[in-house]
């Protein structure tokens, strides 16, 4: 084989490798890290009053760290999106998402407060339905983490299904891993105990003293078309601790979102979702408590995203 032919063959091979594909679709966010260094976020839009957001300010709990603070307003009505909320300026898709967050410490001030911190993806696309992946905290008990997804029935996008897991990370106890769907009136169902694809890991080592309001933690998830892994970095060792490695399915549909989404973080009052450990925790906030966000990161899987768009004519 002549060297020139070899060179051409190698070049073709290299360019054909999907891992090297670079996504240049202007509808989508490229890789970014939002450090909240400026007066306004660089990659996110904010909603509502500017007095809900304090960007590029010193942390209230960590020396030398600049953060974005969100402030909930006691007069905000109940409901997701009624409080401070940021959303990426363009859509995102399969990739690794991570953030460093400290939720407010209200245990003494208002133990029965009904407030949610949501770190999540969310987008309802015509023809594809809902694409939502959640990390959530109910600040009345910051030892618990709620993770899960919301997706649409492909046949009728208005019919939704939830898969979720709730964990007490201070004890390592998995409170439940379940799903619910419109098919039977949104009743909760546990996954079959033999369903490893839906129940991995079955045990989680506790993080001693875990309390999302006492310090910053790094949370993240890796989103593939057939696998979704939620994780947290151990604050001392940096080890990635897998909270849920979901590759399962339900009697209805998989539960793993497929369509593009947007990357969000919000902070809102709920009057009907009490934390599992305190059924009275539905009070409106009585003070504008601060939430701290150090950074938010997005690393898209370009090759997978390009392929998905080609296959779905998106």
């Amino acid at each position: 084989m002549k060297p020139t032919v070899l060179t051409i063959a190698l070049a073709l091979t290299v360019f054909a490798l999907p891992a090297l594909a670079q996504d240049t679709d202007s509808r989508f966010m490229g890789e970014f890290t939002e450090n909240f260094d400026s007066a306004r976020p660089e990659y996110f839009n904010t909603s509502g009053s500017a007095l809900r957001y304090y960007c590029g300010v010193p942390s209230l709990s960590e020396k030398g760290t600049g953060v974005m603070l969100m402030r909930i307003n006691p007069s905000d009505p109940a409901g997701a999106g009624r409080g401070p909320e940021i959303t990426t300026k363009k859509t995102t898709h399969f990739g690794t998402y991570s953030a460093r967050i400290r939720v407010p410490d209200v245990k003494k001030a208002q133990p029965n407060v009904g407030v949610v911190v949501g770190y999540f993806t969310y987008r309802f696309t015509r023809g594809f339905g809902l694409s939502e992946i959640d990390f959530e905290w109910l600040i009345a008990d910051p030892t618990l983490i709620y993770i899960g997804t919301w997706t649409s029935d492909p046949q009728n996008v208005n019919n939704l299904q939830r898969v979720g897991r709730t964990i007490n990370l201070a004890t390592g106890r998995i409170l439940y891993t379940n799903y619910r769907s419109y098919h039977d009136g949104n009743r909760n169902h546990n996954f079959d105990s033999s369903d490893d694809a839906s129940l991995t890991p079955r045990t989680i080592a506790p993080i001693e003293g875990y309390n999302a309001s006492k310090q910053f933690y790094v949370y993240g998830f890796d989103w593939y078309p057939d696998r979704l892994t939620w994780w947290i970095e151990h604050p001392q060792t940096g080890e990635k601790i897998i909270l849920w490695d979901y590759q399962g399915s339900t009697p209805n549909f998989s539960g793993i979102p497929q369509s593009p989404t947007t990357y969000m973080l919000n902070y809102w009052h709920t009057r009907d979702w009490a934390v599992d450990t305190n059924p009275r925790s539905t009070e409106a906030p009585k003070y504008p408590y601060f939430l701290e966000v150090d950074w938010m990161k997005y690393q898209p899987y370009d090759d997978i995203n390009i392929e998905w768009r080609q296959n779905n004519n998106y």
Partner: protein
Amino acid sequence: MTGKLASFALMALFLFSACVEKPDPVPEDDPPVIDNPTEPEDPQKPIEPEVPADKDVTLMEEFSEEFSGADSGYFDFGYRDDGEDFRFFSGFPSLSENGNTILMLRLDPADGAGNGASISARDYTYYGSYSIRMRIPDIVSVQPKLGACVDFELFDDDPVYGRDKITLGLRLADRGGVYVSLYHLDADGGNPVSIDEAIVPGLSDFNAAAKNYIYGFDWSEDAIAWWVKAKPSADKTILKEIKESIPPQPLRLRLRYYHSGNSSTRDNASATQAPNYPYELETDWIKYTPSQQ
């Protein structure tokens, strides 16, 4: 000798005398509240101190501290020595006014009674007008029995002239009141004066937690008048004026934000709880204009 002459003589003594830096005033316990303060034998009696030969007082010139940066040109912040202090945030965006910057002070629930965030002027000030624009946090829904105070005050504890304090205070548990006080104690512990009064300002819908107000006091050699106004262009609403027991010595300006275990409010004697959250005080600016005296 008349009181005026006595004051003049005292001021002359101050200006004449040499000196060294006085020790920084240390936060003292809340002064004892005397319901019926003992009237000094003769309020007009001139103080005839023995001024230390090495005493010096540097007087500050007119200033306006806007808290637009991380540090202040006129005040020292009372940081803890261990570096882990999250009570002072200067140059912070306003919590209530878009585009404005403030000094945000936070309570630390771990601080004991009498302790909190305090900023002190770098040097002494004297007769003149003092004002501050600030808003207290609205805590009445979340912790109505909170014992927390804001004191905008002049203070000194002088080995010769004794302890003097002129205070305009707010109580977080009482959004509708302003607390004015004057306190004196001779260096030897004699001649106590303690005037302590809670006043409801004659402003419509006054609520110290709802918005920023401008609070101040004018101190001259023969009177102190405490006042408040809703905006810069408004006339001063006088809260109280006194013409006796006027402190004769230069004092040091400070702003204290702290948990008080015994300073209950005018209508809530049980408002003495330690803070359950680091409720934020916002200060837009502090101004000092010396009198021409």
